[in-house]
């Protein structure tokens, strides 16, 4: 056959080879159809592992109990016993190494998340003791009068 037939054919074969080689390197070996089938399970399997290794920040109240057992004890006997420490003090991360201290948020906004009085008759919100932030000692921090770790009104 003549050169004008072979030459383009070689070019084409070369192109195919190049694309296949590129694909071999570019597409990871674990990319393909996995457990959930072609429509929903077409992915890179290694990504599941990557998500599993995402760092945790919240540790839970049991962790705080290792060192702040006094706080855990007093709060657990109070009406605030159901609130995890980290809701008010933020995530533990690697506390006490990093950060050495967790934030102590004395803002009214923190308490008002639950105690601002709203009328929510089909919700448990209505069962929480509510105050009107505009009339209940405006301008003062709640913890000046209430103990957040033991909010009982009798023991104020």
């Amino acid at each position, binding site marked *: 056959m003549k050169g004008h037939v072979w030459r383009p054919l070689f070019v084409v074969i070369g192109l195919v080879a190049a694309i296949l080689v590129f694909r071999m390197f570019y597409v990871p070996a674990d990319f393909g159809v996995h457990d959930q089938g072609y429509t929903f399970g077409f992915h*890179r399997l290694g990504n599941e592992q990557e998500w*599993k290794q995402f760092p945790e920040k*919240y540790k839970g109240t049991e962790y705080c109990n290792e060192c702040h057992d006094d706080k855990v004890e007093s709060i657990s006997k109070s009406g605030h016993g159901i609130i995890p420490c980290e809701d008010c003090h933020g995530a533990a991360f690697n506390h006490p190494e990093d950060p050495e201290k967790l934030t102590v948020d004395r803002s009214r906004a923190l308490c008002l998340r639950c105690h601002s009085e709203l009328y929510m008759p089909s919700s448990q919100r209505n069962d929480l003791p509510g105050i009107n932030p505009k009339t209940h000692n405006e301008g003062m921090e709640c913890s000046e009068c209430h103990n957040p770790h033991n909010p009982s009104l009798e023991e104020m």
Partner: protein
Amino acid sequence: MKRREFLKKTAVFISGASVSLSALELVDPKEVLAKNPDLRWGFLVNTYKCVGCGMCVKACKIENEIPWDANVTRTWVERYVITKEGKVLADSPKGARDGFTSKLIDRAAEGKELVPDKEIAQAFFVPKLCNHCTLPACVQVCPVGATYSTKDGVVLVDRKWCIGCGYCIMGCPYGVRFFHPVVHTADKCTFCYHRISKGGNTACAQACPFGARRIGNLRDPNDPVAKAVLTERVGILRDEYGTKPNVYYIGLNKEVH
């Protein structure tokens, strides 16, 4: 046909064909059943118990490194106020990141509206998150295989593979996906896959003081979530889309979508 034209056409055809090779060689006519039928994550939301404190939203943002002040969040809480005249008002300021501290309902362009207590017939909160659908519409539309369902039924996004085209964000009927402003890919709730796969709880459920949120294994008949789904009157969102969501709600109203 001119030689130049022939070359051009063949190159286009071959490159097109070899790209889709990956699809052809792997097509499996029957959707493979999950290999591990003993684990299927599901979520239970009790709307009666939710007080709208937004601690879940705060915890989710911190745990999953979602920028605090960006107007995006993987989970949020909606407030519904239904008046005695049947008017439905709903809002979710900042996704309830800071809770609901005011009676004023955010009506967007119409400003803030105060509904007097005596006009309120029903009022409640509804936490929202990804439904981790059994037939996720968002996964189906992904052109590059960057979002997928794991064998235990969690829908994830591959941040290295996502090209940020936004199809999945449009495809989700629940609006739970968004564009992550830092990572620059699509983003969504992972059911805290990093926590639940190690036997932990999701950050949102752990942060909820009232037990309004709960994750569990729908395949385990002794699991509290599975039990509730089987024995209590639970609802799902937007059933009509046929996506088979795995987030169940106790106390769902027809006004909630």
